[in-house]
């Protein structure tokens, strides 16, 4: 809930604002940059502190990413994601959260997004 609240406060739930952020040669909206920088910094500081604990509070283990290889999947996947993001102005978080606003466009997007994720998983043994 806190995450979505932050998204809304920061204006990230409005796809046109996100596209404006990506429109660096047009009417540029710099706000998401401030949001990301703030969130990243806040997280970076807290991350080091929290990881000093032996384990998380509610579960037994840390479930942190273990991959360290930089490979084609990472790059290609990210590029594809960026295209989809630019086309609409939604990424997964805001898209799901925005379902709360009841716009049919969001439903279409989320549906297609889940299909994309499903097809990916289906295509891997």
């Amino acid at each position, binding site marked *: 809930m806190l*995450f979505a609240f932050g998204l809304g406060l920061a204006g990230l739930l409005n796809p046109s604002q996100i596209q404006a952020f990506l429109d660096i040669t047009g009417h540029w909206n710099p706000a998401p940059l401030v949001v990301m920088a703030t969130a990243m910094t806040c997280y970076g500081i807290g991350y080091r502190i929290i990881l000093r604990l032996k384990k*998380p509070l509610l579960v037994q283990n840390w479930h942190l990413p273990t991959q360290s290889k930089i490979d084609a999947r990472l790059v290609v996947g990210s*590029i594809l994601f960026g295209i989809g993001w630019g086309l*609409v102005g939604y990424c997964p978080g805001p898209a*799901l959260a925005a379902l709360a*606003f009841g*716009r049919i466009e969001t439903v279409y997007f989320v549906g297609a997004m889940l299909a994309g*994720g499903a097809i990916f998983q289906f295509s891997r043994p």
Partner: protein
Amino acid sequence: MSTFLFLNSFLGGLCIGLAALLLLLLNGRILGISGIAFGLLSPKPKDVGWRILFILGLVLGAGLVGKVAMDANRITIQAPLAHLLIGGFLVGYGTSLGGGCTSGHGICGMGRFSKRSILATTCFIASGILTVYVLRHLWGG
């Protein structure tokens, strides 16, 4: 940038960062929405509950902020249906292939100084910018 806009962006960013830290502290996990959501597509036992709760929280949180801190009626989605479907698909497939999205790679990954995340974030921001450029400035505007 107006002070109001800056303040909202800053506070919003703080909320987001704190939320991510909360998930880390409580569940030991990275707050990457694509990972959290798509993990539900191939559910594993005992791994479902927290995901559903999280997504529910996302929607409720948006509902709350829509009433309290933003005008949900002023949201503009300019994308036509074709873009929504293709874009949605690319976001779903791309984040799965690339291992994360703006929250997972962009905030958590970069916050951890992960090289993979820095590269991923650079890639999707670049392709996002390029896409919007083509869309708005080359393709008939």
